């Protein structure tokens, strides 16, 4: 081949490769028919797996003439990153991670379903000590920058200490249970099901849990705001399927037990284990409750705590100059932060449709 030809084909190849890595969001704003949302294993999100496998998702998607794939991702953070990168139209995540990862990364995100809040699913565990104040000066092992870290900060705050008074050591969640068996770990903060496994050990004492900051660690199904605007059917189908699943799983019928058993097995436990996880998860089975929760001013206060925490740890957007950098919108037009950079929206309108039987 002539050098010029080689150069030309190399250039063509380069362009192709570059376009391959180019954004997939182009399709977001358009009217589309097929969608993908992702979820990961967690007590409050298990219904998503059941919704997909039981055919509920297809049923509701068909009703609105679209198709929706609900995909399970094994790694929680990776699922959020995939959503943020534009691979998925929606994903399950906590309020805190929704603010720091997609919203902080400029992906305008709407909290479509407020599924539950942690009511004891996250806790601080000390070995052989039963007072939270004993944590002062200790090495605290936790997944840094996760809701565990947030819980620790809030707990320390309540007893007049701050993060400076402890030494945070990052541990991966996959290794936390094994790490707890070592002499080095005297204090840890984690979530269920790891928390209940650790608490079975005789020397483990839970000294603080998320029920002491109720409603602050919220589990959501979020969707890309642009996609939702262009395709309201996606919102309707997801919300419709979710609340039908809620009414089935909360019922004391055979169908309800079957659904819970399926979720228990998918979560790697049994019905009793799963039900005990649900006891520390404040599920909003009734859409009206979720709507009320989302409209409450306390949510604004919670998100203010969360953004202050994120800002203090430098994870609120690239070089965010202040906690106001990323704007948030709440029901009734209230906002927090920069109104010109609103990236996280709590919108109860779809849940309201479910509550009023309009889906």
């Amino acid at each position: 081949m002539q050098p010029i030809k080689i150069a030309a084909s190399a250039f063509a190849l380069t362009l192709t490769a570059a376009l391959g890595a180019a954004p997939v969001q182009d399709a977001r704003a358009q009217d589309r028919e097929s969608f993908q949302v992702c979820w990961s294993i967690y007590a409050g999100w298990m219904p998503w797996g059941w919704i997909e496998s039981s055919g509920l998702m297809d049923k509701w998607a068909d009703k609105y003439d679209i198709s929706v794939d609900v995909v399970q991702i094994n790694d929680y953070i990776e699922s959020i990153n995939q959503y943020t990168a534009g691979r998925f139209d929606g994903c399950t995540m906590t309020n805190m991670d929704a603010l720091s990862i997609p919203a902080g990364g400029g992906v305008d995100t709407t909290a479509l379903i407020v599924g539950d809040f942690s009511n004891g699913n996250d806790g601080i565990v000390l070995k052989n000590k039963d007072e939270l104040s004993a944590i002062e000066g200790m090495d605290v092992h936790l997944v840094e920058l996760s809701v565990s870290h947030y819980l620790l900060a809030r707990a320390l705050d309540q007893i007049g200490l701050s993060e400076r008074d402890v030494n945070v050591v990052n541990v991966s969640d996959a290794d936390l249970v094994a790490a707890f068996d070592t002499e080095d770990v005297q204090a840890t903060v984690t979530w269920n099901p790891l928390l209940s496994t650790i608490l079975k050990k005789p020397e483990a004492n839970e000294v603080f849990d998320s029920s002491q900051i109720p409603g602050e660690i919220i589990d959501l199904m979020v969707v890309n705001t642009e996609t939702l605007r262009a395709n309201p059917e996606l919102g309707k189908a997801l919300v419709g399927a979710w609340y039908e699943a809620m009414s089935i799983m909360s019922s004391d019928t055979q169908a309800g037990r079957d659904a819970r058993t399926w979720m228990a097995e998918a979560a790697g436990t049994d019905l009793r284990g799963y039900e005990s996880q649900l006891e520390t998860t404040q599920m909003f089975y009734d859409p009206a409750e979720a709507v009320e929760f989302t409209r409450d001013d306390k949510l604004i206060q919670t998100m203010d705590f969360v953004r202050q925490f994120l800002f203090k740890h430098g994870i609120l957007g690239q070089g965010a100059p202040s906690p106001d950098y990323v704007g948030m919108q709440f029901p009734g037009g209230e906002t927090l932060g920069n109104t010109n950079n609103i990236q996280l929206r709590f919108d109860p309108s779809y849940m309201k449709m479910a509550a009023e039987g309009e889906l």
Partner: protein
Amino acid sequence: MRLINQKPSRIARYALGALPFAAVLLIYSVASKLRHMENPQDRLLPSLQQMAAAVERMAFTPSKRTGEYTMWLDTLASLERIGIGMLVSTVLALVLGIAMGAIPRIRATLAPFVGAFSLIPPITVLPILFIVFGLGETAKIALIVVGTAPVMTRTVAQATADVPDELLVKVQTLGANSWQIVTRVFVPMVLPRLIGAIRMGLVPAWIFLVSAEAIAAEQGLGYRIFLVRRYLAMDVILPYVAWITIIAYVLDRAFYLLSRKGLRWAHGEGGAL
């Protein structure tokens, strides 16, 4: 002229060597540009300027919380771990490898075990490492040693076994005892292969270092990468990856040059990578 006989000039060689790097950089810039046109705050493919800003923040600005330079702190912590780990592995490989290669009884005892042990993926036995070594520095160094020492040992053992019999017969006729043969024949003969083993061992060593730091740490290059992954800060991750690559490359070259200068006899004519 046949293709295998066409040798590029010195300048052309450098230019050709730079070509793949330039191509990757170009592809990256175009893709990053496209994503930023879509979303100016995109984090997946940060622009080169954003990465430069992140490096400035991580390496040249004291951290707001601790007043330290994060990237240097991370680098020192990681280099210390990998340095101690490789030192332990090297000593183990030299002692065990020569013993196994030179002394048939030790070979019979240890060779099958080391062979089997080298096949265990170290990550799978992490909980055991935790119980034995705790969660601190020792466990991280142990993971590097477990991951690199067995293979390095086998390389050295093989190098020892490869020492020509004629040579051994010759020194024995000259009256050398076993210890003298080890120190005067085996050690010098296996040194080039040992350096080769270190260079090869550094590849998994970096992998295990990063894995170990992901599990439990307060600083380190791998720790930082896994930490900032929690908010998709690719502007920090990519420079860190480049930095790791540069350090690994420099270390590899340093060992190569050490071998080339120090052990000239082992480097005959012919190209070496």
